[in-house]
């Protein structure tokens, strides 16, 4: 197995162009586990650790934030909690402190596992992913178009993930995840919500609920229409929202949980996170008034 170690982004792109079969590795919290278990035996590893550009983030003029694919979860929590609360909450649930020091959103996107904790909040908040190749340059892929199948994403063989972009926080965001222990657990299923009150819109993201992370469009549309955006949350509306989120899932029975439980739990998490978000939204509206 070859171990490629570019020291700059340009070198990394060149290496990936030359060796498209090389498997990129950043924190190694997923790739190394699979190597150790013999799941993969790639011909080459492309170590992005030395590529410093990937470990930086910057606010953009329009208020959005561009975060390098190599910024570890621990830094997302410490430095970006106010700019992306949903993602920061998800980051807090990733593995152990050691894993959060190493693991990155770039790794989550590269692996494209439906259980990746970063996907639901990125979907809910309307993220876009910046990918790049030496031959064709940069392109931006909306999160909704990135996940193609179980552990398959829209990356071309010569492309690398450069960064993700999130729009400015428009309202409350929450992330919630089911695990059968109280820390260090892969999601049985997970849910994220983001309110955009000025647009009277809601974003959702579901994890471990289908072959890919996904949004519950019908639930989003229902809530946008049915909710009284200037009033309290109607319990029946919240209940229906939960049902529609559950219905959006196409979960499976596996060793971590049953399909029936996943659908049920997604509904409960959707209802609860909506209530928390709505509470924050109303509090914010009242404080402004």
């Amino acid at each position, binding site marked *: 197995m070859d171990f490629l170690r570019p020291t700059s982004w340009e070198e990394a792109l060149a290496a990936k162009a030359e060796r498209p079969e090389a498997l990129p590795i950043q924190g190694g919290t997923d790739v190394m586990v699979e190597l150790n278990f013999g799941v993969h035996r790639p011909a080459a590893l492309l170590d992005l650790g030395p590529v410093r550009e990937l470990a930086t983030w910057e606010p953009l003029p329009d208020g959005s934030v561009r975060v390098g694919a190599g910024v570890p979860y621990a830094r997302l929590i410490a430095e970006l909690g106010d700019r992306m609360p949903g993602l920061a909450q998800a980051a807090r649930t990733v593995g152990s402190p050691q894993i959060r020091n190493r693991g990155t959103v770039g790794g989550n996107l590269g692996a494209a596992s439906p259980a990746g904790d970063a996907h639901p909040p990125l979907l809910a908040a309307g993220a876009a992913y910046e990918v790049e190749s030496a031959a064709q340059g940069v392109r931006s892929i909306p999160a909704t178009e990135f996940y193609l199948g179980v552990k398959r994403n829209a990356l071309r063989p010569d492309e690398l993930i450069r960064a993700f972009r999130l729009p400015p926080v428009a309202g409350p965001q929450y992330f919630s995840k*089911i695990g059968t222990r*109280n*820390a260090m657990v892969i999601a049985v299923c997970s849910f994220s919500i983001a309110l955009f009150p000025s647009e009277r819109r809601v974003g959702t993201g579901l994890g471990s609920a289908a072959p890919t992370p996904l949004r519950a469009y019908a639930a989003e549309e229902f809530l946008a229409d049915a909710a009284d955006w200037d009033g309290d949350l109607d319990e029946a509306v919240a209940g229906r929202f939960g049902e529609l989120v559950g219905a959006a899932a196409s979960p499976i029975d596996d060793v971590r949980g*049953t399909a029936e439980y996943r659908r049920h739990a997604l509904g409960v*998490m959707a209802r*609860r996170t909506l209530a928390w978000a709505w509470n924050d939204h109303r509090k914010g509206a009242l404080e402004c008034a």
Partner: protein
Amino acid sequence: MTTVPVSAAKDVVAPGRGGVGDSVLRPDGTLKVTGEFAYASDLWIDGMLFGVTLRSPHARARIRSIDVGPALAVPGVEAVLTHEDVPGRKVYGLEHADQPVLAIGEVRHQGEPIALVAADHPETARHAAEQIRVGWEVLEPITDARAVIADPDSLRVQDRGGIARHQPVRVGDMVAARARAEVVVSGDFSVGIQDQAFLGPESGLAVPGEDGGIDLFVATQWLHNDLRQIAPCLGLPDEKVRMTLAGVGGAFGGREDLSMQIHAGMLALRTGRPVKIVYNRYESFFGHVHRHPALMRYEYGATRDGRILYADAEIVLDGGAYTSSTLAVVANAASLGLGPYEIPNIEIDAYGVYTNNPPCGAMRGFGAVQACFAYESMMDRLGEACGVGPVEIRRINAVGQGSKLATGQVIDSPAPLADMLTRLEAMPLPAPPDTADLRNLPGGVSQTTHGEGVARGVGYGVGIKNICFSEGFDDYSTARVRLEVVGGEATAVVHTAAAEVGQGLVTLQAQIARTELGVDRVVIQPADNGVGDAGSSSASRQSYMTGGAVKAACEAVRADVLALARERLGGTYEDLSLIGGKVVSASAGALAEIADVLGDRVVEQTREYHHRPTVAMDPVTGQGDTHVQLALCVHRAVVDVDVELGLVKVVELAAVQDVGKIMNRLSLEGQIHGGSAQGLGLALMEEIVVQDGLVRNPSFTDYLIPTILDMPPMRLDILESPDPAAPYGLRGAGEPPTLSSTPAIVAAVRDATGRALTRVPIRPEHICR
């Protein structure tokens, strides 16, 4: 003399100055915390090869052919071995030699070893093992333990047949008791497969000796019993197999059976080079036996006020394909199957059966854990049916000193169960959850609730465990103690073959030597078979047995030193003892330094320590004085349950345990915390999930063990009611808390949810369905 590998165990100077009763620190504690301790996986010697095991992907299949040619052709490969290459006996085992060293024509469980490869690099060996071509005829696995009991002759997994042991217990007149019962409760309960989940995978190093023998450095629980199985298979006399304990990263019963020992020995003998084998985490799940899963049916009849009149129980334990320790596990389940309660009429049938499910054997609690979940669930059912609270129903039926167990054995030392329950109940209850911190809530920072749907529950559990080996086993221990002057200071050197597996025996040995010999400086030598058998580090027995042996050897050394002192002092002192480095007369005070009395003399004594004899259970009635000592622990669990999502946060575990004598409180509390955590794991998350004989979760990603956020703070009340038969009056302490924490937690979850919860581990879907 062979070269000693890097990282082999060395003499350890025990830290501190404390004797028996002091909270002395572990000699290996700092090294383990800082990552410097040498575990068996750290063993290294120049020129060594790496061994890899090819294992069966099938639960049951015939092997039509094995072609090792492609593996041998891989550059760097030094040997590829199959069962044909086993130098001696081709089978081994703890109770019956029925387990092939390498599969012979057939595999009976997933992961069964088929062939071995030694190569100059572990990756090369792994790659070569994948090149071995096996011609399979896959068979339908036998996986239903109850079906095996119904038809043991046709559902035969191996030559010994379908049932490994059926142990009945028959006491009293069941017909009359049934007629008198005013209240009858019953239940079906089951326990999934728990794994020991030790962190240090199976590992060891075999070094061929110039005499044709072999030096084995291995992480095990019982060096001498390993030796008794290894030597015949390697075709070597015992004295040519030299065993040294390597750093053990946890055991919990999972290292009682052999893993890589014979395999590494075979490869080393064949290649003439040292061979190291280290399992990875995936392989480790197939490299050792697990806790027996259990299917249990119980029925109790009682008076209206809650006094139990009869118990009828069937306990089915699935041992997998080979015997391992199933026979003894069945004996525990049968003899302790109703717990520490006085029940006058009894009918128990305990079975251990062979299937193609994963192999099962020893794990902390050993047969008593499974039954404890059932009998404690029954006590709660009975209490509910009689309108008596959970503590009271247990107190009403509790044993005490003088009570009879199901086997008819009279408990002849203190067993203050009713008092323990009263103390437990009196402990203050924890405050309601502070919902401002997500870590206090079910789900933790995964943020599944801010308090919605959360209900609190309280539950109790009681357990009884036998200490030391039972049923006629003479599991003695040997200790050699030397007293000599080193650098001007009297120094005790303690040598045993007892395995330090993390439990703290290495600390305790030094404490005993200090107390008995009045010296500060104690050196503990590595455990090896250069000294006599110490028995197994299991059954909560090492403080009792090896502690007893060290004490006896120290007493013999002390007698010699005092004789020397009398010689030197010329007097006829009858009241001498060794205290604070001095020979002290009770009447005349300090008379001499021990170092001066010794001079350049070396005083050495070796002693064997035997516990009192026991007998086997009667094959028909189950009666007999089968156990050496019995130990009690009681737990109260307080839980918060998210009833809508089925997630559980254990808020507090409180425990009362009678240990006879607190030898080292720090170490003891660690054992109680650890045992309780392992019981929590069984209650809420730990299970090897099996489908059609195949393991679905052989990784720590999906086999979950409790984290620090799952294990709550504990409130402990430790009693010291001495057992006059035991050294210092002590009572084995490592296993009892593993029993009672599980039913206490399940009872608390039932209290919070109203669900029946008849299976452990509880899954979220069992709660919120």
